[in-house]
């Protein structure tokens, strides 16, 4: 009861409600614009959050996450281009249905299933995150090391692209985290006499570079792309018939999405693809999939939105990001001095339940905004890239500079923009770099502290049951892509 009251606290704070409203609105705009999305948008907004208190900052980021994930569906349905990667599966049936003159029905179903999936995942978050946090009390340094390794190996199994390339990208991310003074001995590493590098490479220049600047360079190669737009009259709520047809799909996909979200990897994209294929497998009319099936839209949208709450579970309970956007949210928490983990649940329950409550409200807000404003949001895609991206560049540069008022951060951002462009071009996902960067300190710190505890005996890791379980899970995660390939 007390927790429920804590969850409702944002409703009674005009400041938080305002932050939620702007976050949801901004998230929807970002979700609608192809190439942007909640991850890049979250990275762009991070420097601005410094002016807010920690709770408002995280509420802003999480509302962008929830609304941005849904916003991708609007573009997917109307112009056959997913606004976010997680909306890719929505294109498969959303656009064909819109072409049949039922864009309003498709968007209505996408909105309803997104909201149901989102709320379902918040419920999972509320019940599962404290449970996981309690479990984490059993963890010592060796267990955290094994958990971080598990988180990184998961990238190989279910992340985008080649598993080995993802591992290289993850290792690169950890390597970046080693730049600067070694935290145990204060010895400089990879600083090459540059004093500013002694404090290490900041999260924000890397995140903004890898997401926003590399996307800008990618957009510079796609200038001739022409979108075919389907006209939208108004968003229509699903009919009773539609509900009868899809309620099982929505619930199933919500469960799948929440589960996939909890696993440390690219939650929403993988969740929507699995949600979509499961909807097809269980459907009485699988032949309609790909031609405008309402079940296909419901399956994909419920799954990708339910991954949002799921991905917040390991982020808040263990400090291990469940997706690319939660990696940005985790960065936001860290720069505000909040260290996620079991202690956070014990010491600051009002902070956590404030986040849960705001995620719930954000889902309701994007339902209202999406339902009445989809037509307006769809028009945002008309802003040409040749105007949009120079503006994003100006915001990125000033935002990155603002953190420590250092031009070096701006050069680092540009460098990572170029690195990110070539990584994407050659099939390396940039998400593992961010996750590696965030987990780097945890991986090295816990490894070295464990070795101190074990007196340098590596085999002692295998005598800790929880750590051993995570190592076994890591091996399974590494072997999974090979097994999947063999099965194919």
């Amino acid at each position: 009861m007390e927790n429920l009251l804590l969850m409702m606290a944002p409703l009674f704070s005009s400041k938080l409600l305002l932050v939620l409203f702007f976050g949801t609105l901004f998230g929807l705009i970002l979700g609608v614009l192809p190439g942007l999305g909640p991850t890049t948008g979250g990275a762009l907004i991070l420097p601005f959050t410094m002016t807010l208190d920690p709770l408002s900052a995280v509420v802003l980021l999480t509302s962008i996450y929830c609304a941005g994930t849904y916003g991708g569906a609007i573009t997917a349905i109307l112009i056959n281009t997913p606004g976010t990667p997680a909306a890719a599966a929505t294109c498969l049936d959303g656009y064909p249905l819109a072409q049949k003159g039922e864009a309003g029905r498709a968007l209505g179903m996408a909105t309803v299933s997104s909201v149901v999936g989102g709320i379902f995942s918040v419920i999972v978050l509320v019940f599962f995150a404290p449970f996981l946090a309690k479990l984490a009390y059993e963890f010592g340094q060796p267990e955290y090391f094994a958990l971080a390794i598990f988180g990184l190996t998961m990238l190989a199994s279910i992340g985008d692209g080649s598993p080995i390339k993802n591992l290289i990208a993850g290792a690169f991310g950890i390597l970046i985290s080693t730049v600067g003074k070694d935290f145990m001995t204060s010895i400089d590493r990879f600083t090459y006499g540059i004093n500013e590098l002694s404090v290490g490479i900041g999260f924000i220049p890397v995140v903004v570079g890898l997401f926003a600047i590399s996307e800008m360079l990618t957009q510079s190669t796609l200038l001739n792309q022409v979108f075919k737009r389907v006209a939208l009259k108004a968003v229509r709520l699903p009919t009773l018939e539609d509900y009868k047809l899809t309620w099982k799909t929505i619930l199933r996909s919500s469960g799948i999405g929440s589960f996939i979200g909890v696993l440390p990897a690219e939650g929403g994209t993988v969740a929507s693809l699995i949600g979509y294929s499961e909807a097809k497998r269980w459907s009485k009319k699988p032949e309609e999939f790909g031609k405008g099936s309402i079940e296909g839209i419901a399956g994909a949208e419920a799954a990708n939105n339910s991954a949002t709450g799921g991905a917040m579970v390991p982020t808040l309970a263990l400090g291990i990001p469940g997706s690319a956007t939660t990696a940005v949210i985790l960065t936001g928490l860290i720069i505000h001095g909040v260290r996620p983990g079991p202690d956070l649940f014990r010491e600051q329950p009002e902070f956590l339940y404030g986040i849960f409550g705001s995620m719930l409200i954000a889902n309701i807000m994007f339902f209202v905004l999406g339902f009445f404003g989809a037509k307006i949001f769809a028009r945002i895609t008309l802003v040409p890239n040749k105007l949009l991206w120079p503006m994003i560049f100006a915001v990125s540069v000033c935002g990155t500079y603002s953190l420590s008022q250092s031009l070096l951060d701006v050069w680092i951002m540009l460098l990572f923009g170029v690195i990110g462009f070539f990584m994407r071009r050659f099939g390396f996902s940039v998400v593992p770099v961010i996750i590696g960067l965030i987990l780097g300190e945890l991986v090295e710190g816990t490894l070295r502290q464990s070795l101190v505890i074990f007196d340098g005996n590596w085999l002692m890791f295998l005598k800790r049951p929880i750590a051993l379980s995570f190592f076994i899970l890591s091996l399974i995660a590494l072997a999974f892509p090979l097994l999947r390939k063999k099965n194919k």
Partner: protein
Amino acid sequence: MNNVRKQKRANKNLPFFFKDEFRVSFIIIFISSILLISTFSFDIVPPILNRGIQPATFPKALLVLIISLTLLIYYLSIKKPWEVQKKIPKTFFLTLLSFLIFVIVSKTLDFFLAISLLSFLVSYHWGERRIFYLVLVSIIFPIIVFIFFETILGLRFPPGIITNIYYKF
């Protein structure tokens, strides 16, 4: 489609050192090797102060891992070549050149001027020719961003020919 096929065929006949697989692997291994060599110059902690492993050990292990995995992807690419990428268009290089101009101008003349110039160059190279929109993107919007960061976030921009005039008033 035909162009991609033609490029694919042409790519097959290329010597190995012109193929993406080799070039990418070579660059990763080359940079990693340089970084690996540099780790040998990290200071060493005396045994009495050393807790656990030396500060250089962890980065060394990561670099060896990166090199080994890169060798593995190169080996696998011999059996299954990577997807052929479309040629990078001129606009990409012009955007990259604009970045370089941005760095030079912000370092030598003015940070605000550099943002303004980059916005103009990118917008122009990407096809914008309408004067109003070019002014909007390169002058009006950067001024809004500048004032926003300066007044609301209390940011002090680095000194430069335009920024100094602003701060004088």
